[in-house]
């Protein structure tokens, strides 16, 4: 058998030296020493057993970790195997030592690009066109002017105010995919059902940077985007950011504060699920419909990884969504769990536009089979999940029947609101 030699490990890596260029901010989100992030691993190998990609190709996180710990980091990085990681963090959900493997791969991607001259383009789907848009926006001189024609007439938006609806990248996809087009107008309609004041929608909205951060490990570009976004938010005077996108939510809620500590203090980040739940509980909106289906329609929910495994364990979004779903039974919609749900959800197979191939398709197929067993409609709240599931439905007839819907689209027809009464309610509260 081949004999490997453990040699003296390097003290400072090249990329760590390089990091001084970008200054202090990079240190907040990047560490070149993978070993330090992994050394609490005691080789239980549970990760390899639960790893989703390992079901379709040879990929063993536990062995990758042990090799890095034994000083064969270079071999691992050189091989490029880590580009295959789905970044779904199923392993984190099971790890007894709470090792955040996806985050380590993110760091590794940075090193692989900078030190081993790997091109992330080799692993990106759609020839990297979508991430290029994000990367372009990160450049100082680029200021986007976005299409605003989709905004419904009855929704008068503003360029300043308290509440921002961050649309995200959906509009950029529409030259290839049209199924997402309805999400932004639907969301605005939903918001206006509750809100009296105009919602802020920015014409020069920047991408949140999620795909650059996770998909390619482009940290400097991510920092630029964060800086530009914060500048925009402050200028518009907003105090609350609402998103319909799981990735955007996680990025604002968790990753921006890593770079800028006061981000959460300045801006409240809310996912649309939380927003609707809160208003429902406060009595500001009601689930009601005149159009109860004759036979119960069963539906299920695909938890995007960014809303489940990628949030702190204390997060309640998954449970809030379910509380609302169960309530919908009165309106003829019966909620069914898929076999794998919440933090145990199966992966859509693609994150950050990386790695679309037959293996990730197989994973997606598995997920849709589960969905089919659970209901007629699969609701989710991640645009990329929707796109990729829809795409697969074109290829396979047996799973084509499931309707895949965004959370907002699914819910809007089930929400009733008597604006006057609502206003009265508010007034009463104020009088008190």
């Amino acid at each position, binding site marked *: 058998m081949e*004999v490997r*030699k*453990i*040699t003296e*490990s390097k003290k400072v890596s090249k990329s760590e030296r390089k990091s001084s260029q970008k200054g202090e901010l990079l240190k907040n989100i990047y560490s070149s020493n993978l070993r330090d992030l992994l050394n609490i691993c*005691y080789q239980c190998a549970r990760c390899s057993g639960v790893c989703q990609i390992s079901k379709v190709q040879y990929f063993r996180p536990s062995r990758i970790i042990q090799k890095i710990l034994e000083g064969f980091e270079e071999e691992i990085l050189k091989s490029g195997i880590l580009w295959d990681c789905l970044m779904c963090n199923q392993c984190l959900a099971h790890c*007894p030592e709470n090792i955040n493997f996806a985050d380590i791969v993110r760091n590794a991607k940075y090193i692989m690009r900078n030190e081993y001259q790997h091109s992330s383009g080799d692993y990106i789907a759609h020839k990297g066109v979508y991430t290029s848009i994000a990367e372009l926006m990160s450049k100082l001189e680029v200021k986007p002017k976005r299409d605003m024609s989709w905004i419904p007439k009855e929704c008068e938006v503003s360029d300043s105010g308290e509440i921002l609806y961050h649309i995200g990248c959906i509009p950029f996809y529409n030259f290839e995919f049209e199924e997402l087009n309805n999400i932004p107008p639907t969301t605005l309609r939903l918001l206006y059902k509750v809100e009296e004041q105009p919602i802020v929608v920015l014409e020069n909205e920047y991408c949140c940077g999620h795909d650059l951060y996770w998909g390619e490990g482009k940290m400097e570009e991510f920092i630029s985007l964060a800086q530009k976004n914060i500048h925009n938010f402050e200028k518009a005077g907003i105090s609350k950011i609402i998103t319909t996108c799981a990735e955007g939510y996680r990025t604002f809620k968790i990753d921006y504060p890593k770079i800028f500590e006061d981000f959460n203090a300045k801006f409240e980040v809310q996912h649309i699920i939380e927003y609707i739940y809160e208003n429902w509980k406060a009595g500001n909106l009601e689930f009601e419909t005149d159009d109860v289906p004759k036979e119960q329609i069963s539906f299920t929910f695909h938890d995007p990884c960014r809303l489940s495994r990628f949030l702190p364990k204390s997060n309640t979004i998954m449970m809030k969504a379910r509380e609302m779903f169960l309530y919908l039974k009165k309106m003829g919609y019966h909620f069914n769990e898929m076999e794998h749900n919440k933090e145990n959800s199966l992966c859509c197979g693609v994150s950050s536009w990386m790695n679309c191939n037959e293996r990730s398709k197989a994973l997606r197929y598995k997920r849709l089979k589960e969905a089919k067993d659970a209901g007629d409609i699969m609701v989710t709240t991640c645009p990329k999940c929707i796109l990729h599931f829809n795409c697969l439905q074109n290829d396979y007839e047996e799973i084509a029947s499931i309707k895949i819907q965004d959370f907002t689209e699914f819910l809007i027809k089930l929400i009733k609101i008597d604006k006057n009464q609502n206003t009265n309610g508010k007034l009463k509260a104020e009088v008190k």
Partner: protein
Amino acid sequence: MTEVVGSVLVVGGGIAGIQTSLDLTELGFKVYLVERTPSIGGRMAQLDKTFPTNDCSLCILAPKMVEVFRNPNIELLTYHEVIGLSGKAGNFEVTLLKKPRYIDETKCKGCGDCAAKCPKIEVPNIFDMNLGKRKSIYIPFPQAVPPIYLIDPELCLKLTKGVCGVCEKVCKAEAIDYEQKPIEFKIKVGAVVLATGFDMYGEELSPRWGYRFENVVNALEYERILCASGPFGGHVLRPSDHEEPKKIAFIQCAGSRDLTEGVPYCSSVCCMYTAKEAIITQEHSENSNCYVFRHDIRAYGKNFYEFTQRAQDEYGVVYFQTKVSQIKEDPDTKDLLIYYEDLTTGQLNSFRANLVVLATPLVPPEGTKEIANKMGIELDEYNFFKEQSYFSKSNSSKDGIFLSGFCQGPKDIPETVAEASGVASQIATLLASKRYSEIKEKEIETPEKEVKIADDPRIGVLICHCGINIGNYVDVPQVTEYIKQLPNVIHCEDNMYSCSSDSQERIKELIKEKDLNRFIVASCTPRTHESLFQETCVEAGLNKYLFEMVNIRDQCSWVHMKEKEAATQKANDLIRMAVSKARLLKPQSEDSLKVEPSALIIGGGISGITAALNIADQGFKVYLIEKEEKLGGLVNELYQLFPTEENAEKYIKEQIKKVESHKNINIHLKSNITDIRGYIGNYDVSIKPSESKKNEIKVKVGAIIVATGAQELKPIENYQYEPDNPHIMTQLEFEQKISEQGTDWLNDIKRVTTILCVNARQKEGITYCSNVCCSVAMKNLKILKNLNPDLEIVVLYRDLQMAKKEFEDYYRKRREEAMFLRYDLDNLPEIVPSKNKKNGYQVKVFDTNLQENLEFTTDLILLATPMIPADNVKNLAKMLKVPLDGTGFFLEAHVKLRPLDFATDGIFLCGCAQWPKNIQDSIAQANGAAGRASRFLGAGEITTSGLVSEVSEEVCIGCGKCEEVCPYNAIELLETIKSFEDIEIVIKKSHVHSALCKGCGTCAASCPTGAISVKHYDFDQINIMIDSYLIEKPQME
């Protein structure tokens, strides 16, 4: 100053609370034993068998439970809660709540008539881990102590709806009381012991473990499944379909050592009970095969590691070294699919099991926080009760409140028992001024009447119905008539409950009125009731050995329920046999022996020092013998203590100072023991200083504690080790080197390699796991890293034995400082001098995690070798007449329940003399051994049993067979010179020390000349019972 109170509150009636209570009463303190459930016994009562001896758990526990029940100085408060505490050490006031049983405890006889007739509404029985069922009036399990029923107020029709009331109608003892209310009351105690045990996770686990599936059970549930008195009568069946599972999978670390589950620590006992459960399963059920999914094997205790190996080698249990990723249920068959990675091939596999047993975390029980609040004590980071300091784990954060057993942190039964004795001895020190102040000794008023052998036997017989327990199956009136007409039976009557207090009065009355000189009760088992009746006889002036008991319940009505006539016949036979024996009963006397109030402690290491201080603090004289020129033992060779990182030298010096300045302690350094004679209470010991000029010293002691420690193995010819090689050394040599030479020499070193399990856990030679080497190695790793943060450290390990509460976190942090490579026994690491590097070594190892060969250079190699017995213990063992085990360590009386005793009364052991252990455990054991010994020292005298063997000197030929077979060293061959007409010879005669004799009769059975007989069970008495059965048997019609 507040007055000190001589009684103690013990909270929790599991094995920890039971042992603490029993030892406390023997040390002279009254105990209030509070248990929140209806019976004492705790978790141990729920277990099927105990590792590693596979004793029936309840069988070895029940006698202790009964002992608690009978002990006049233990006030047993089951179904009570502690609701408040005030005061301070020496004088606490405790508020207790008595929960209503709806049964008058003074009247209930535990016959069970009520439950038999209670309407068939059944709920899951908590004692059976909800797998079995019980009625609304119940006792938790048949052997419950006290044997008193209670009503579940939520289920009882009478209490909820006001209907039914059947139990009241059927209870012949009129014990049902639907009007009972909770009662609050206060008691005064000098100290409090918390022994609240643990809970085991089930539903609390995250869903990945599949606990929700029908055929996935936790290990405690599986204990009930295995148990003959459990829900399936001991047949291994799975819950979904009550079919025998062919493949049973045991999953280790199912939630322990897991930050995701919120249990960062190792539960310590799972590796062992899993091996036990697998072995028992293989024994029970021919068709079942067991598979264990394990991670590190942590077998923490004497020969425990070999036990896990035996499971594999002898019983064919298959171990997979991996953690499982998922468990799914096949909905059709209810089988379970276990997904895991095969570490040897890297393949992802699935395994189909019919039943899955999860080793789930053992956690502090529900209500722990509330108790901590009420007591005003702190919890640790895992919510166990926090110990005052690492090395005194029996003390809580508050003076006067002590911790016993699992409530302080994971530990197994022997550790718990040892610690319980230690708690008792520490309380004895605290409350020393009030010893015996609250203890009651029964005063007998009636003088014993003289019964001569020539007197005609006048026998009285009482036959019990036991409610309907006996009466429904045995025709008691008919038996009474039959017995009445037997010769010498002066009186015979039957009654409902012979054990009731009015029955005791009746017995006394009969003895007096009818001038009886023998008495027989035919009822239940002598195990629980003989002493009660004996006491009654004594109160009536009858020697207790003139009482005889017949069991016509367990051995008659219960086993012959369906054959009433035969049952009645058998009752006739049994009682008739007892009557025959009773005619030959003789009064026996019980002697009392004076006990010398001093102790000899052999070995002046940390164990000996601790034991000496404890006994001396209780006010007894101590002789501390050490063969080296200074006290301290192995701690002298340490640099730092694990895991507190205290300076070892400073620590041991403080301890030695305490010993040296103690007025009750007599230290003999550089001394050996040359002779030990005598028996409990009266030992004559000769001590010889090794400097030849000095004279032999003779001392007299009442008890002896063996604390001779152990030593580190030097692995000569292994891994290039040789003494004085500055680059390859053992862990202790490393510590000595930095203590003595400082740390400059480390500057030249870049990479250190630590090899664990050197010469340990082998197939041959030393097969055991020495338990402590891993933690020593981890400590040294940290020392090295602190001294030089740039050092690279590689650890070659097989399994990491870091089983104690705080060890996993310690190890977790070490992971950050070193590279850990796993190797196995088939491919040991190889070390050769490096060709390129001066003073360097080349290490080759097959890494089983990666399944690859690795090679690297290193400048320093630290070998973790096992501890082996101290030198010359064989000689000492011979002098003490106590045994060594196969590995050369001293062998305790019972590995589970008597870990600190030898079978010979009066001699005790602690520390590494028994088995390699760390300082914390050595201290706990030393306190325990001190407690065990001072039970005798404090009593001043001990009473010997009348039930001992006696030697007829004339018949004895001095062959010595009896001495050989006696398990208690109670027999000695004494030499006398016999003069005949023209010759004088030395003759040996067997002599029984009645203080040591347990009356087992082994000597009598082995004596070739019939010179030995056991009093109260002599050959005539036994023969006549057999004759009575065979010859006097009346013909059945």
